[in-house]
């Protein structure tokens, strides 16, 4: 578990966020505050994490030593899935998935998702141009991902990458079958990005204006009804009420036509 996971904060957390989180944890887990017998251990771990992350230099070194991130929790909770993805899609990380250390496949998987934005785009275009070409696909993605990954892979891992690519081509037949799954995964991750794009698009802007207009009309109607009803409440005449319903009906019709 890395320091960010330990403190339960995103890697992009600001120094203020990190400090605030540490203070919260200190108030909960400092042995002065916690009855739990492992409070001492817990607090020492939080403190160690905080002391690294609060110091800009130490943080930089530590961040560089971390495997690329994102969706790390999912990866570790669904180990089979992660394996499936890495071996089938042949995104850069597969190099590491066969490294001897048991933790490596997971971190490799994280690598794939680290470069969400970029590799997603390249992925899609590959797919469009060559719909079922697993071999070229593995090549293309391999290239796009490699520079990123090489920073993090140890020498053993890179040595293994050769064997890996052989294995890839041998299992090429399987690739296309699992594509849909990979795509779904990526789409999930890219949700935020899609949202942002949507807001900027002209169509959505028009839609929003329409919506606002509709609400304004309804509000005006309600206001009208109220101004007519209140004198009626004083007079309490049935004919008045009738007039009100009539006007109301008209207003509703008007509103409908407008919308």
């Amino acid at each position, binding site marked *: 578990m890395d320091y960010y996971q330990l403190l339960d904060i995103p890697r992009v957390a600001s120094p203020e966020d990190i400090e605030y989180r540490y203070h*919260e944890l*200190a108030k909960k887990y*400092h042995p002065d505050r916690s009855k739990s017998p492992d409070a*001492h251990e817990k*607090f020492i771990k939080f*403190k160690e994490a905080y002391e690294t992350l609060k110091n800009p230099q130490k943080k930089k070194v530590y961040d560089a030593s971390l495997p690329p991130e994102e969706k790390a929790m999912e990866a570790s909770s669904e180990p089979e899935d992660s394996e499936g993805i890495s071996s089938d899609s042949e995104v850069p990380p597969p190099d590491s998935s066969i490294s001897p250390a048991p933790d490596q496949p997971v971190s490799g998987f994280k690598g794939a998702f680290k470069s969400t934005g970029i590799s997603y785009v390249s992925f899609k275009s590959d797919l469009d141009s060559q719909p079922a070409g697993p071999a070229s696909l593995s090549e293309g993605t391999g290239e796009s991902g490699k520079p990123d990954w090489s920073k993090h892979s140890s020498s053993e891992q890179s040595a293994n990458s050769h064997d890996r690519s052989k294995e890839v081509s041998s299992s090429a037949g399987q690739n296309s079958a699992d594509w849909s799954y990979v795509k779904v995964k990526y789409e999930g991750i890219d949700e935020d990005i899609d949202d942002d794009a949507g807001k900027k698009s002209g169509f959505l802007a028009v839609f929003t204006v329409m919506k606002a207009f509709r609400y304004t009309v309804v509000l005006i109607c309600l206001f009208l009804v109220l101004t007519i009803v209140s004198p009626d409440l004083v007079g309490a005449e049935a004919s008045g009420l009738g007039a009100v319903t009539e006007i109301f009906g008209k207003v509703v019709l008007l509103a409908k036509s407008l919308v």
Partner: protein
Amino acid sequence: MVQVKGKVLGIDLGTTNSCVAVIELGEPKVITNSEGKRITPSVVGFSKKNELLVGELAKRQIVSNPENSVQSIKRYMGKPDYRVALNNEKYTPHGISSMILQKLKVDAEKYLGDAVGKAVITVPAYFNDSQRFATKKAGEMAGLDVLRVINEPTAAALAYGLRDGVQDQKILVYDLGGGTFDVSILKIKNGVFEVLATCGDTELGGDDFDRKIVDYLLSGFKEAEGIDLSENVEAMQRIKEAAERCKIDLSSLTTSNIDLPYISENKRLDMEISKEQFEAMTEDLVKKTISITEKALKDAGLSPQDIDEIILVGGSTRIPAVAKQVEDFMGKAPLQSINPDEVVAMGAAVQAGILGNEYLKSSGDQQIDGGNLVLLDVTSLSLGFETVGDTTAFIIPRNTTIPTRNSKVFTTHYDNQKIVRGKILQGEEQAASKNVALGTIILENIPPELKGVPRIEVTFDIDANGIINAIARDLATGNIRSVTIERPVGLND
């Protein structure tokens, strides 16, 4: 968290005076002693009729019965071989301190109308492990369960922090007491009191200011009458008291007259000291405190402008020259709005409240319970392990937040070495012999190897109480040797 039932006392066991406070209705309140005073002199003595006297009564008889009176015992705390002869018996420093604590406890029980069994006791931040241990021991001997030994400047910060609100600020506590000097820098944010750095001198305090006046009087008398009074116990006691009074006078007057008739047979000591003279005499002492303050700021990585509030603690900060020097150095007027003799005890009561999760009231509408506060203190002295050539390998540097743990890997220094032995050291010196040895780690049965091959990991662990644990582990065999610091025999009496 400690389960706390009943009141917990916050005790400032000072070099010259002690004070007790307790949380009442969410606020720290100072307890008056059986003489009706808010502070109790840290003096113990036996009357000529063999009665034990503590506090005001003991102080009163020092002049008439100096050989059966003890004062400033705190200066000897934690020295295993130091004994005080009183009433034909020998007492340890913590034994004497326990008599003071006993009186404070009895008086507090009288005030509260209830039995009290627990306390938080303060010590100078710069006290080492043995001195802290001796203080805790004194509490136990007085029948008190010592929940926590906390640092005096930190306690003062808690008292101010609770009163003025726990918003975002950095404070510097300048604590010049009767016998010790401490500086601590804290950051208060989100209800967390985090000590950034602490520094001090356990042998610098108001007593040293008195000493300067005493020396001046002695040399003046010798010059005038040709008599050296320094061997005359009774005369010395009178001069010491006069010097203290003179120092206090000079906080508000420009000159002070010392008139001691019959100081030596029919000779009279009659001298005058002006404020300027006193300030010139004690200038070096004040300068020393400023340079320690500078060091603490450097350790915290801050400059004087970064400090939002300066707090003066300890009776000696009443000396105008001291307050002025601090103000000049920091570029800001210091706060002294809580009585500097009482603020430490009040802070100790606040910490007791935090430990007991009691309701605590802060400034204005800010109502908080103990659960919203926590104190993150530091270890004020570095902790290391003795290695070849009388050198210290530091494992936990000073100003590390506690609880903490750290380890370093060591190796053998000759072929087929079977045993590794080294002292656990506390202090800042590179030379191992100049630091305080807290105990020894011996790891046996190391498999024979060439020198430099075995890997022995030494881990130090400090808990929230400041208790140190040491573990040595042979990484090849997995052999473990765990050592809880053993105290010198003298401290266990």
